[in-house]
């Protein structure tokens, strides 16, 4: 494999990784701070994508669509937290799984009701369409570079928020001991709504950004949700740093596995069975990675020893 191809594939893996990070960050915060398993996180990703498609349809502007997606996902997230999720904090995980699974069904059917079941498409903005030349003669899609940049910027912003701001201190305190922080006079209900809306907004942003690359359709969130769960289990539940490292690991493993495994099997098998076996095994690599990491670090790479 040439160096140019390898770098291109690393960029592909990085782009996939930062997408997963946007999903996983919200999921891990919500699980870490509120102890809530939120299966409906994938629906918020879908809502972001549909909101972006709708706003782009009305205004024709990609940037407005991105803002619209962020706001719609955050608002629906806050609303869902106040109406449904709030009642689930004291229940056990099975109740949470059941209730949030019901939310998936409601959101999916609701979206189908309003938008129909045919996929929608978003256009890349002119500024970002087409390829660009990177140093070293590597051609790469501008839009994918944009996704990487946004993902890294959001990651940096989150670290700053968690480590340096008052809200961040409250979030970390909420993770450590929620009774104590309530006793100290922090309005824990408001904090929970805020964290949930933040997670929802990140998922919505991820959905809106993926719209121009893929299709916007009902049920698009669930495959990503499964990967996001893999990411937070690998990274350690509740840890933003873990979500970041885990997301990049999963993104790179998946992308590189897809191209390298068939070639690896080609060394000792005939070409056509090598490609089929390689392709089948490539879809398992991230789960093998997860199993391997959990074997040595049962609570994930950056998980607390709870």
């Amino acid at each position, binding site marked *: 494999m040439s160096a140019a191809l390898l770098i291109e594939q690393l960029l592909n893996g990085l782009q996939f990784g930062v997408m997963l990070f946007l999903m996983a960050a919200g999921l891990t915060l919500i699980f870490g701070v509120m102890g809530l398993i939120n299966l409906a996180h994938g629906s918020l990703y879908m809502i972001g994508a549909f909101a972006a498609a709708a706003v782009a349809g009305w205004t024709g502007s990609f940037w407005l669509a991105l803002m619209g997606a962020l706001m719609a996902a955050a608002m629906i997230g806050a609303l869902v937290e106040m109406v449904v999720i709030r009642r689930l904090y004291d229940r056990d995980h099975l109740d949470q799984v059941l209730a949030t699974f019901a939310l998936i069904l409601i959101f999916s059917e609701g979206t189908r009701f309003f938008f129909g079941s045919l996929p929608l498409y978003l256009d890349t903005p002119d500024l970002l369409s087409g390829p660009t030349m990177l140093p070293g003669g590597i051609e790469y899609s501008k839009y994918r570079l944009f996704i990487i940049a946004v993902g890294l910027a959001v990651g940096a912003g989150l670290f700053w928020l968690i480590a340096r701001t008052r809200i961040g201190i409250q979030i970390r305190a909420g993770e450590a001991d929620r009774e104590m922080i309530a006793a100290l006079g922090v309005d824990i209900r408001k904090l929970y709504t805020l964290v949930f809306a933040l997670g929802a907004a990140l998922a919505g942003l991820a959905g809106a950004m993926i719209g121009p690359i893929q299709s916007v359709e009902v049920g698009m969130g669930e495959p990503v949700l499964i990967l996001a769960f893999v990411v937070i289990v690998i990274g350690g539940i509740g840890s933003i740093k873990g979500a970041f490292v885990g997301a990049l690991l999963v993104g790179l493993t998946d*992308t590189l596995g897809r191209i390298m495994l068939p070639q690896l099997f080609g060394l000792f098998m005939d070409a056509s069975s090598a490609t089929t076996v390689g392709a089948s095994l490539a879809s398992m690599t991230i789960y093998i990675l997860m199993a391997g990491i959990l074997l040595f670090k049962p609570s994930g790479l950056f998980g607390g020893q709870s």
Partner: protein
Amino acid sequence: MKLKTLALAGLMASTSSMALADGVSIGMITTLSGGGAGLGIDVRDGFMLAIEQSGRDDIEMIIEDDERAPDRAVQLADRMIQSDDVDIMTGIIWSNLAMAVIPSATAQGVFYLSPNAGPSQLAGPGCHENYFNVAWQNDGLHEAAGAYANTAGYSNSFILAPNYPAGRDALTGYQRMFEGDVAEEVYTQLGQTDYAAEISQIRNSGADSVYFFLPGGMGIAFVRQYAESGVDIPLIGPAFSFDQGILGAVGEAALGVHNTSQWSQDLDNPTNVAFVEAFQAEYGRLPSLYASQGFDTANLILSAMEVAHPDDADAFRAALEAANFDSTRGDFAFGPNHHPIQDIYVREVVMQGDVLTNVVVGTALEDHGDAYADQCQM
């Protein structure tokens, strides 16, 4: 008390057998949601257009969405066969679902007419007297594409398909006819939506052509991302990669691309002209090849129903084999394994008014059957 129940049971039995003797019930399992929805919706709409045009009110349709999930399709099929008592089944789009449903359905005495999937397993040793494929054996359009690539002068192709029965049939079919080299053979996941890794491989492969089989949403995602990536190696595909549904979503990126199909909206025969016009009037969009396949399937069923009721299995089967209906493809006949023998055309994507569509520019293979017919023993 006992007598009453018996009488009631007798009454129920007689009414249900009366309903059976009068009408025909058809179960359609197809994909109506998710990334493959466009295909199922077109098959259904084409099928229902023919049923409506026939004016018959003795046909009971049961239409269900399989969501492209094999387990869901099996569940629906069991229900249709065991409790709805359907005579004929049809509708499945995807070969992996077809493999899960068709063998057990035909074994239970139901007729199955495939409006789309044509896995090689069911054309060869696994063929069945009650299974008819009205569309094509999976390899057919890909064989034609291989033949077209030879005449177009390509000598080194990068080939790409999803890892499921039809995907493997596709690349086998292409290589059966293509005389050049294969730069790389790549299988992706069924339903995959991001092709960045594969497009990077294509860019670095040194191929002079890319052959890809990605039906439905997969094809839309691939062509859009391919156009974005700036790779300019020419694309060739079967009709599935450039059907009417994909063209609308892909836009001008597809202009000028060649693809192979057994049908095209501009085929000049009276049945097809009337079909295209009626479909547009009814649904407000151009039909795709899937719609034409659904339409042909329904018309074949209707033609056989003129001769015999499906309960009279031997007569009904003989009527299906005769294929005595007007196909949108012009000539149509079944081979010995109940798969079509037909012409396969080369089409080009053009802009007609402000709509992208395909027009026929040549014939790739004439009266083409399939490679598995002699392995079939009925």
